[in-house]
């Protein structure tokens, strides 16, 4: 049983733990890249200029704080190596706007041209069917891009008419259950390697795909986004949020310890109250 003042105290402590490190930033704990994040980074890093990758913006604004910084970091990395990017969204209509903004912003700052160096294909429902169709013909499924431009004469899709045999890598930034269909209907039959990024709560779900080699890299939550930002050499929103996340996690562990101390204390008091007999 938690008294209401206890709940308000917990909420206040969490709020302070989130806000204070953002207001007064510090750089104490190094955020070393993990093997899983290096899997995605190294694959993109080893691609040649002129190669094409697919970045699936399979998330909506609810996962934006975790996955949008990841998307920006991956795009910065790809564009810095003159790699073409095909953006796509098969999760929900709201993800398309985030994909367009990320590609336009990062593409713009790195001197890339929409339609030639990158394209954002919009949302289509029923992802298994869309993914397997993209493997054989992109323009048949997408007659226009997310901005309503016809894809027929788009240079990037002239170079890459289908995913199978044309793209060198695929990264799915997923808020939901999209990694599995991309593995089953995209990467495996299409023969292209795949990596994934996901929210921290989904991170454990996708480890079996990483362990089996079906995806060669896995970025989980804000921490992975911050690692990628450090690898790219441009710290952003994810790196800024790492201190807050560190302190909140430590606070949660502290809450669990205190909760258990209270629990065992009440048990021992009850034990004493009932006479302590076995």
């Amino acid at each position, binding site marked *: 049983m938690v008294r209401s003042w206890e709940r308000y105290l917990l909420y206040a402590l969490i*709020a302070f733990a989130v806000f204070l490190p953002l207001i007064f930033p510090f750089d104490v704990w190094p955020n070393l890249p993990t093997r899983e994040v290096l899997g995605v980074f190294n694959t993109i890093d080893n691609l040649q200029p002129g190669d094409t990758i697919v970045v699936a913006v399979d998330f909506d604004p*609810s996962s934006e*704080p975790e996955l949008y910084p990841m998307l920006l970091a991956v795009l910065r990395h790809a564009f810095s190596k003159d790699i073409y990017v095909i953006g796509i969204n098969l999760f929900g209509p709201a993800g398309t*706007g985030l994909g367009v903004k990320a590609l336009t912003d990062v593409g713009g700052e790195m001197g890339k041209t929409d339609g030639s160096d990158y394209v954002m294909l919009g949302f289509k429902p029923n992802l298994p069917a869309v993914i397997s169709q993209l493997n054989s013909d992109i323009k048949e*499924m997408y007659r226009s891009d997310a901005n309503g*431009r016809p894809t027929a004469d788009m240079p990037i899709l002239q170079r890459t008419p289908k995913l199978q045999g044309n793209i060198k890598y695929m990264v799915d930034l997923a808020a939901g259950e999209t990694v599995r269909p991309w593995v089953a209907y995209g990467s495996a039959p299409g023969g292209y390697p795949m990596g994934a990024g996901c929210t921290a709560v989904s991170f*454990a779900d996708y480890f079996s795909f990483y362990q089996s080699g079906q995806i060669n890299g896995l970025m989980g939550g804000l921490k992975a986004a911050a690692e990628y930002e450090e690898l790219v050499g441009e710290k952003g929103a994810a790196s800024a949020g790492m201190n807050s996340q560190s302190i909140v996690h*430590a606070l949660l*562990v502290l*809450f669990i310890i205190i909760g258990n101390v209270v629990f065992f204390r009440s048990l021992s008091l009850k034990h004493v109250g009932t006479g302590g007999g076995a």
Partner: protein
Amino acid sequence: MTFLRRQLPVVIAFVLGLFTLVIFYIPAAPMQGIGDRLKIFVTIIGAFAMLLGINSILGQHITKIRKKRPGYGYSWVLILGFIAMMVAWIPWWSVPPEGTTVYYPWGGLENNQGVFYWMFFWILVPMQATMFSILAFYIASAAYRSFRAKTMEATVLLIAAVIVMLGRVPLGTSMTSWLPDTGFWGSLRMEEMTSWLLNIPNAAGFRGIVLGVALGIIATSVRIIFGVEKTYMGGGD
């Protein structure tokens, strides 16, 4: 009428289901071409399902407003928001600027002066992000209230959760960074223990769930194709 409602859907499911299954194993171009056409049909049907969803949610909220049920004011917000976003997206056919083929004077994702852009990035995105972020407060409260070492299983879960929570943030990994990188002591580093937990017990358990789900999907698909499972037509059988 019974034929249209009961038998025709079963025949369509049987013929198309079996056909799609067979052409998966026939790589010949004409067969794959037919398969591609079918996939486009599936996507079109999926779009109609979205229309049904819109119809359903609007219907529910209109009924709520009409009957003045508690909280019906929020239904007004939903309906007005829906109409505003939809109207802003419609391409009003004015002269498009040079280099564009479709022009959305009010909306569009490229038009960062437009109403749609403003509503999307300054209302929808922050509101949805906020809703998800509030979870942190509930998780904190839930962790304090219910994460108790009551049984052996609960204790194992609790210890694993604490290790993963600390192993997934720089503060946690810094706590054991003084340990050597390799050997027995290296395996006690927070990030190594987290990696082991995720890679071995977690992946093993999750793989079992995934395989179970996959087998369930196969069994249900076969039941639908052969007309044993008819609940998708509405009503049990």
